[in-house]
């Protein structure tokens, strides 16, 4: 039997971080009491007309540039279908003339994934089905919240260039890092501001045919994305190996059951009857505007990662920091002299990207420098960073107010002598080679200094005393 290759294309929907909605003055904000972020326009009330949010265009262009796309004159079109979440029973989207086309993303492993298009559209509202099942079938009634209706979305469509679940995850991570870095989106999958649909098919390895694909929806995390793709590919392979074939359909990922399920069966293929929206005029970004936006773009995550690796950073650490969206912070901290690997370490392990608070690149750089100079232990450095995030200020001030003055070596030595005097038997056994007692003495000394001693310095002192 031949081996199989998985073929994946992803459609990523990113909510753009604008103040107001795509075509309506209503606020664009996650959460909020149902139906409070609404306006006659995004409720689609009779007589209302959409007006393009220029900020959404700008953010979309930023993403387009970050993804190496061409930026085009674009036209909004109506995608017609009946759905209670959708106030007008059509969605304003872009069809044959999208804003961004023909870009690419390079994965950390060097694979180039081509982007077919990244177009603007409006989000739908959300239904809640009230009844025992919690699903639409069998619900007693349903409630609709239009707070999300009309929120700007950028739909980023890749070519079917991905070949594994790992690549798919890496691609989404790269995309998310770029979206966050250019300030276009907060990229939170758990809040639904980044949503991923996967088109999955398989083919005999080495073939270049495109077989019947299934679209997998309801993938709410990177982990689910990987699992869903792996499951679906396996399902297709089994079907082919049993002499059957998959049918083209939309399937939903069931996280608990760990499998994809067919969506509601549709009697016939949807015909969205796209046509240019007569309420809107074409958007034709000028070359000057595009260049202005390009000039204001930050260094992009992939570029940062490459720079760091060249400067001696651990590639895995660099990747983690990029995917956590902390690239710009680290870049600015290292620009003022912070050590790259130490900074990356904190960015990967200590700093919560969701709770950056008052932390500035200068504060981070200062902390890293103090740690490197031995003024702070690594534990203390973590505490200082937490305080910087919560309270702000300077690392030196925090260290002082916390009592994190670097323990004088002589002082520590005196304390060690006291610990040895209090535990003569243990000291003798340690000197005779019972190495595990090192932990005992370190612990005693930490206790005596209330955790302010640097573990490395204690280690040096212990060895020096023992060999003395």
């Amino acid at each position, binding site marked *: 039997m031949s081996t199989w290759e998985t073929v994946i294309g992803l459609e990523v929907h990113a909510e753009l971080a604008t103040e107001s909605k795509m075509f309506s003055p209503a606020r664009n904000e996650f959460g909020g009491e149902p139906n409070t972020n609404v306006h006659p326009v995004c409720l689609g009330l*009779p*007589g*209302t007309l*959409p*007006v393009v949010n220029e900020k959404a265009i700008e953010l979309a262009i930023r993403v387009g540039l970050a993804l190496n796309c061409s930026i085009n004159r674009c036209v909004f079109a109506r995608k*017609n279908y009946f759905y209670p979440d959708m106030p007008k029973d059509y969605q304003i989207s872009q069809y044959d003339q999208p804003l961004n086309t023909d870009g690419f993303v390079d994965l950390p492993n060097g694979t180039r994934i081509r982007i077919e298009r990244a177009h603007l559209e409006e989000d739908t509202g959300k239904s809640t089905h009230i009844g025992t099942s919690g699903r639409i079938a069998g619900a007693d009634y349903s409630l609709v919240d239009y707070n999300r209706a009309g929120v700007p979305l950028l739909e980023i469509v890749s070519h079917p260039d991905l070949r594994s679940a790992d690549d798919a995850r890496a691609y989404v991570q790269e995309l998310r890092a770029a979206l966050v870095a250019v300030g276009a989106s907060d990229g939170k999958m758990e809040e639904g501001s980044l949503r991923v649909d996967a088109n999955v098919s398989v083919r005999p390895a080495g073939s270049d045919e495109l077989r019947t694909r299934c679209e997998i929806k309801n993938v709410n995390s990177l982990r689910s994305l990987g699992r869903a793709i792996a499951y679906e590919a396996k399902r297709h392979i089994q079907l082919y190996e049993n002499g059957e074939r998959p049918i083209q359909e939309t399937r939903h990922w069931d996280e608990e059951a760990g499998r994809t399920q067919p969506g509601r069966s549709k009697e016939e293929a949807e015909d969205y009857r796209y046509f240019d929206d*007569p309420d809107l005029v074409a958007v034709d970004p000028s070359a000057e505007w595009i260049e202005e936006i390009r000039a204001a773009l930050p260094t992009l995550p992939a570029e940062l990662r490459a720079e760091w690796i060249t400067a001696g950073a651990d590639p895995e650490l660099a990747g983690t920091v990029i995917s956590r969206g902390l690239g710009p912070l680290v870049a600015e901290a290292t620009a003022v002299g912070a050590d790259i690997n130490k900074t990356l370490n904190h960015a990967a392990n200590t700093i919560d990207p969701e709770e950056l608070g008052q932390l500035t690149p200068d504060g981070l750089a200062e902390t890293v420098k103090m740690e490197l100079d031995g003024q702070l232990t690594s534990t203390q450095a973590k505490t200082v960073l937490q305080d910087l995030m919560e309270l702000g200020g300077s690392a030196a001030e925090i260290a002082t107010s916390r009592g994190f003055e670097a323990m004088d070596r002589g002082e520590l030595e005196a304390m060690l002598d006291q610990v040895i005097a209090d535990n003569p038997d243990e000291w003798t056994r340690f000197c005779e080679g019972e190495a595990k007692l090192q932990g005992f003495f370190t612990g005693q000394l930490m206790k005596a200094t209330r955790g302010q001693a640097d573990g490395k310095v204690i280690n040096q002192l212990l060895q020096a005393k023992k060999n003395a």
Partner: protein
Amino acid sequence: MRTALEIANLVRSGELSATEAVEESLASIEAQEPQIHAFNTVVADRALDRARAVDQAVAAGSDPGPLAGVPIALKDNMCTSGIPTTCSSKILDGWKPPYDATIVEKLAGAGAVLVGKTNLDEFAMGSSTENSAFGPTRNPLNPSLVPGGSSGGSAAAVAANMVPLSFGSDTGGSIRQPAALCGTVGLKPTYGAVSRYGLVAFASSLDQIGPFTNTVADAAVAFETIGGHDPRDTTSIPQPVPNVTEALERGADGLRVGVIAEMMGGAIEGFEPEVLARTREAADALAAAGAEVEEVSLESTIYGLSAYYLIAPAEASSNLARYDGVRYGNRVAQGTSTADMMVATRTAGFGAEVKRRIMLGTYALSAGYYDAFYGKAQRVRTLIIDDFNAAYEKFDVLLSPTSPCVAFPFGAKADPLTMYLNDVCTIPSNLAGHPAISVPFRTGANDLPVGVQVLGPMLGEAAIFQAAAVLETAA
């Protein structure tokens, strides 16, 4: 009955109170409405309140604006905050918009006083106002005849002197044709000259708001009041509204007038001979006033009707999707699913003509048919624009009948295609986005008024008002 300008001037000078003007209007409505049924809603108390506010402003020495104290009526497809806006459809019966259309704000800002909302063919689809869910409007000149449509209520309200000024919407002739059949002036401005924000959409690329008046001068001041750029409508033209009042006194000397051959007994058939005769007389009157009049052929206009009946229903099928029973208006809670409810709501809520156009439009946009229908219709539209533009290199304005016939009896055009032919002269202007005005010019069969249409290029309102004023004098 005084004209709008007469009322406004008297109110501004303190010789007439707005309250008196509005009371007169309300009395006229009360007396005639049982016979005519021009209105879906009359807001007497609100109107009197507003009139008093205008009077107080005058008393306080401030100028309420160019339409001070003028009672006005709006077609019931323009959103009025807190006042029902039904589109003469059961599906919106009782719905009160939470906001005002831009035109409502502009008119209030000019001192006009809204007295009521007028009847129309449901969602502005029709040419006789027989398609209203609330019963037809009757022609004030002869109640056994239709007033035309779809803005039949607004035309009748002005023709019956219930108000001196009303507003309609014109998608394929819905202002000009009822103006012709009721003997009033009716203007369809350039597409984008008047904001559509708050006008319930029928066909978004064709809809345009305009006035009905008894005089050309009233139409001019009305247009100047409601026109201009609106940031809430991105299809509105970012230019100040043209001054057209200036043009009324220019006469026709040197005006280059092209008479559209296809609409004068040429390629398009079915015109009443009296209508053609009056239109020729109108051309002669312009020539007598010094205009250079010539016949001109606009070949592609003969396809206008066919293109229109693909484009307008296509847009309508999408615009009218939102009436699904989920958010506002009537809901028929039948069946076991949301889809069942939507189907039941739309089946009960829409009349036959609206359903017909939704089906036509849905079909025209369907995969596999788009190019043959909607796409081809859009190409015809481009050809019509090209034809017009070529003609406007030689002419300042064009002339044609407004409607092939005078007012007709109820039920006379029960076959939809026969009814659609009413708009054959008016549709090309909508497809091109150009302005056109219908002016009453003498009478045709049964002594009923004939309307003559003056067409102009994009933002060519001044020229069409210039010609219209000459025709008004010559009529």
